[in-house]
């Protein structure tokens, strides 16, 4: 073993409290970098997934549902409301100028289903006109979604036989979707006829029917619009809001920019926290190594007398800092991976933002970056603290020591 590593290892082991304290600082730094980076990446992935998923230029929901069960609630959180358009309003919406395509959706909230511990959002779409759900389903399933078929979100627990029960009737799970990081991962999709059938069963089985007298075959919870080329979605949304008082139209760009703004704010806070932890850790690490250096002038003098150059001293201190910071960085990153993966779901609920964890490759890269960053910070702080002493004349070190 090289002498620098041997001396470093012995020093680390001979002062366990000091070593653990220094390692803990590096662990804190690595944890902050990994957990912060993981959260920011998850939010960015979530936004990207949300952007891809939205598929429409304008979303319209009944005005009464604003603030509760609005389209962005549905798209982000899977929260549905019990408000529906009249056929007259749907017709008026579709007649608005500048619309290239419009499709209706029908939202239904299930009671506690056999498949799930929580309530499940059921979204019915019209296969004839849909442009928002089917392209997304097509990424996981190429077959047809017939009557009696459902497509489950990524977080739905699908039984081994592929059958799922809603309101006393079983349905075939035709496909399970990719994870989106939004509340829709706990939603179930089916065509309108299937969802209407579920609603009828619900009305039969439950004392309080979810539709409260609305005909499920005709009920519309949302209208998604794709505008003609060259038409500003905001103009179409304004037009609907002005002329149809019972409708609340929101341009998708507005929803995305709202999410992006939230994301930017949260990312900024996370970035600020990571920077603060970094500055604090660097300052404390540098102070620890500075104190250590002052304590160890005699040791440095002995090494210099024995022929060690200032570079050799830096190697000893570097090896010591690398051993301690490396161990701390690895522990902090491991803890960061564990906690980040464990709390990814909570993050989505707490921030009300789409959260999609990065893949294994990106997670490993982030972990390597966190370890590297904390390691370099530890070694860098040690070098800064010891550089002046390492370059000091040996005779002066001896004078200061005696």
């Amino acid at each position: 073993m090289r002498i620098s590593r041997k001396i470093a290892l012995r020093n680390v082991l001979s002062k366990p409290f000091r070593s653990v304290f220094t390692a803990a600082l590096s662990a804190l730094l690595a944890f902050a970098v990994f957990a912060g980076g993981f959260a920011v990446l998850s939010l960015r992935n979530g936004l990207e997934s949300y952007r891809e998923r939205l598929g429409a230029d304008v979303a319209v929901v009944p005005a009464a549902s604003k603030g509760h069960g609005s389209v962005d609630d549905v798209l982000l959180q899977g929260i549905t409301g019990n408000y529906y358009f009249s056929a007259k309003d749907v017709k008026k919406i579709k007649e608005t100028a500048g619309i290239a395509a419009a499709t209706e959706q029908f939202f239904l909230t299930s009671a506690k289903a056999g498949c799930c511990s929580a309530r499940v959002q059921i979204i019915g779409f019209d296969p004839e006109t849909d442009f928002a759900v089917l392209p997304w389903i097509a990424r996981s399933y190429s077959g047809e979604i017939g009557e009696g078929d459902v497509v489950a979100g990524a977080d739905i627990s699908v039984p081994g036989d592929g059958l799922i029960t809603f309101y006393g009737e079983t349905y075939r799970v035709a496909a399970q979707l990719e994870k989106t990081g939004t509340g829709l991962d706990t939603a179930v999709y089916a065509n309108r006829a299937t969802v209407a059938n579920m609603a009828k069963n619900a009305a039969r089985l439950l004392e309080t029917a979810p539709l409260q007298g609305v005909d499920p075959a005709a009920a519309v919870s949302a209208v998604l619009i794709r505008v003609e080329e060259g038409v500003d979605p905001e103009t179409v949304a304004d037009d609907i809001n002005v002329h149809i008082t019972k409708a609340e139209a929101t341009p998708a760009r507005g929803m995305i920019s709202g999410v992006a703004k939230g994301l930017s704010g949260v990312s900024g806070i996370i970035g600020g926290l990571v920077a603060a932890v970094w500055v604090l850790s660097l300052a404390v690490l540098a102070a620890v190594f500075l104190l250590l250096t002052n304590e160890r002038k005699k040791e440095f003098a002995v090494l210099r007398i024995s022929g060690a150059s200032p570079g050799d001293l830096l190697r000893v201190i570097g090896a010591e800092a690398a051993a301690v910071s490396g161990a701390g960085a690895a522990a902090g990153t491991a803890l960061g991976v564990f906690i980040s993966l464990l709390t990814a779901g909570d993050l989505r609920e707490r921030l009300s933002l789409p959260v999609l964890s990065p893949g294994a490759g990106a997670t490993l890269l982030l972990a390597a970056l966190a370890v590297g960053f904390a390691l370099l910070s530890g070694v860098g702080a040690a070098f800064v603290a010891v550089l002046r002493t390492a370059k000091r004349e040996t005779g002066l070190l001896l004078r200061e020591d005696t």
Partner: protein
Amino acid sequence: MEIRAEGVARRFFRNGRNTNYFYAVRKTDFTLKGGTVAAVAGRSGSGKTTFANLLGGLLRPTEGRVLYDGRDLFEMDEKARSRFRAANVGFVPQGLSALQNLTVLENVTLPACFGGGGDRERAMALLGELGIADLADVYAGELSGGEARRMSIARALLPVPGLIIADEPTGDLDPASTTAALGLLRKAAENGAGVLIVTHDPAAVGACDLVYAMENGVLSRE
């Protein structure tokens, strides 16, 4: 081997102020040839240790130069001088000097790790001559003052250096150990090394071929 100081002086500043300084060693010419054991005696604070550090290449002179076989030590860069010292200069510093977390044997073989000569067998032989071979595997932090002093003498002698500088080498030693340590230094001189001993100890002074006195930074032959 010949070590020569030409007009060597060293001043220090007090409290880092450029106008407030003092000379620890005033302009000094000095030559020590291989085979000679010389002593520098004098009161505390007279400049003996500073002079020893200048000759050993551990302290840069503010004036003059130090030549080892004609090579100016301070014309070498820091790394080259360190490696040169590891191979050619054995130094026993004043006070206790050991890496506490290394064993006695590991401490003694340190110069070999930085390009100096010597090996484990020679280290064991030196420890044997100094009477501490049985402590080879003991951590330096567990040694008494006298044992640590003998260990640092063994470390200085390990690479068979041409110049040995020993600052108070017998300070912590009992008479038997003093005899052993001075005997080893004499043996090194007989093998061609130049030995400079900085000391208060009459026994050490009595064992030297030449004796110098240092007073207020001025070196004179006695």
